[in-house]
């Protein structure tokens, strides 16, 4: 038993020492508390999204590009990461389903599938009260 505890403690110590070197997370957290700079310009027109894809009222679209078969939509959400995450999670309805989701301090991902498409909603709060949104939409 003692050996087991020691082994566990060593693993934990290694993990903590190595884990503290992560770095980037703290910077992002600090950035999320700072005032936001001027937002990117709204895109002309509306993005081509699959029928029934969530379009929360708080979201402003800033651009859309095609990368091969995949469409990447850039946007921002007027609100913090919690609000953005909850809003998108509640907004996915039939024929879409959420396959996986993860919410960390200032970033979150929602994996979705439906309507012949699948992809990800990537959320990152870069400043106080605004969350960047990247939609990756690819064929199923």
């Amino acid at each position: 038993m003692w050996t087991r505890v020691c082994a566990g403690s060593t693993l934990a110590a290694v993990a903590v020492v190595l884990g503290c070197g992560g770095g980037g997370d703290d910077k992002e957290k600090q950035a999320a508390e700072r005032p936001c700079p001027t937002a990117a310009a709204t895109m002309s027109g509306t993005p081509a999204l699959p029928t029934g894809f969530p379009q929360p009222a708080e979201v402003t679209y800033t651009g859309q590009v095609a990368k091969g078969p995949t469409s990447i939509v850039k946007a921002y959400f007027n609100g913090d990461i919690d609000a953005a995450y909850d809003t998108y999670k509640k907004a996915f309805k039939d024929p879409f389903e959420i396959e996986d989701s993860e919410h960390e301090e200032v970033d979150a991902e929602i994996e979705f599938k439906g309507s012949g498409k699948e992809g990800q909603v990537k959320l990152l709060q870069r400043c106080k009260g605004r969350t960047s949104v990247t939609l990756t939409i690819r064929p199923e």
Partner: protein
Amino acid sequence: MRRLVAGLVLVAALAVAAGCGTSGSQDTKTLTIVVDAPFARSAYLGETIANAVQLAFQGKTPVNVGSQPYDVRIVRLDNGQSPARAVADTRRAIREHALAIVTDGTGVDAGWSLANEAHIPICIVYDGDEGLVDPEARPNVFRIAPTNHGISFRFAEYLIPKGLKIAFLTDDTGYGRGGRDALDHAFEQNRSSVATRIEIPSTATDLAPQVLKARRSGATALLVWAQPASLAEVVIAARSTGWKVPIYSAPSAEDPLVRQELADHPDWLDGLTFASGRMTAEVGPGPFLAFQSAFQSSFGPQRVGVKGPNGKPVVAPPDYAMYPYDFANLLLVAVQAARSVDGDKVVAKLNEVSVNGANGDERGFSQNNHDGVVDDDVYFARFRDMVYVPVKDDPLSRTLPPIDQEG
């Protein structure tokens, strides 16, 4: 960091529960977990899978399921990348009342139903073939590994904007054919980006004719989805004729065999870019480095057999070890949540539980999704001086820290 700490607390709690909860009045029983992998034909892959499963249970046995303590026995069966042998291994797992089968993916098409009838969950930790996993039709099959769908679409997103004319070279194994199907699907809306599609024989030791055919097709890039030996032969055939075409590859490029085959011409490997599952998560490299440290402490560094940019031996990071390790941890949590080793109950709990994975990411399945690695976690890495680093011209990859590979 909170996730890491939570993970450690969970691990510590499991260790204490496992270690302290054994009742003196109960005889310890044995849980058998079968690792079915190509131990002889691809020792790197087989050993990686088995060692990772073993690591997951280190310090956690006996495991208490309800009030019953269990030791864990890991049985290694060599499928030799033969579906027939994999089916025979499945039958043996059933005879031995295995709790679960962890496999590279060989023979799952043929053996999953046998395991399902015996209520044994299977987890695939290497093969990304789309058809292998279907939560409705194959409720006992799970996967933690990048999918072919994810790899091929990420390649399409990465390569098509470069304006390349790509020759697909896929080998005649199940791995290569699965890759070919996935690439065809990912590139079907952009067919002008594909110069040619060539199947290469996996047993050939000279692929000069196939590479010449690709060159004559006007290809400006090669995308190889093949076993490690065939990939090495493609590189040799291209570079030995002075063709400096960019070469891209499936995750098999990571296998030490590729670098060993090219040890006499390390510069030929320079620039080879491959897709794989990200090693580090949003929380940073800490959890992965801790896992790597634990893995190497237990089994020693996985030496590739070549030297890196600083003249030191190259060590393979245990990225593909994360997947069997995470599954074994999920299995442990599922069994304890079910308070039973009954297969149906364990499968049901596998659809519900989650753990903090080896890289700090949350890992788990649901009733509708039995794939534990999402498409958007596929990144690209490029070789230079026998080690690889994430590329800078892909939005995800450029955010990932390089992992030291010399030791």
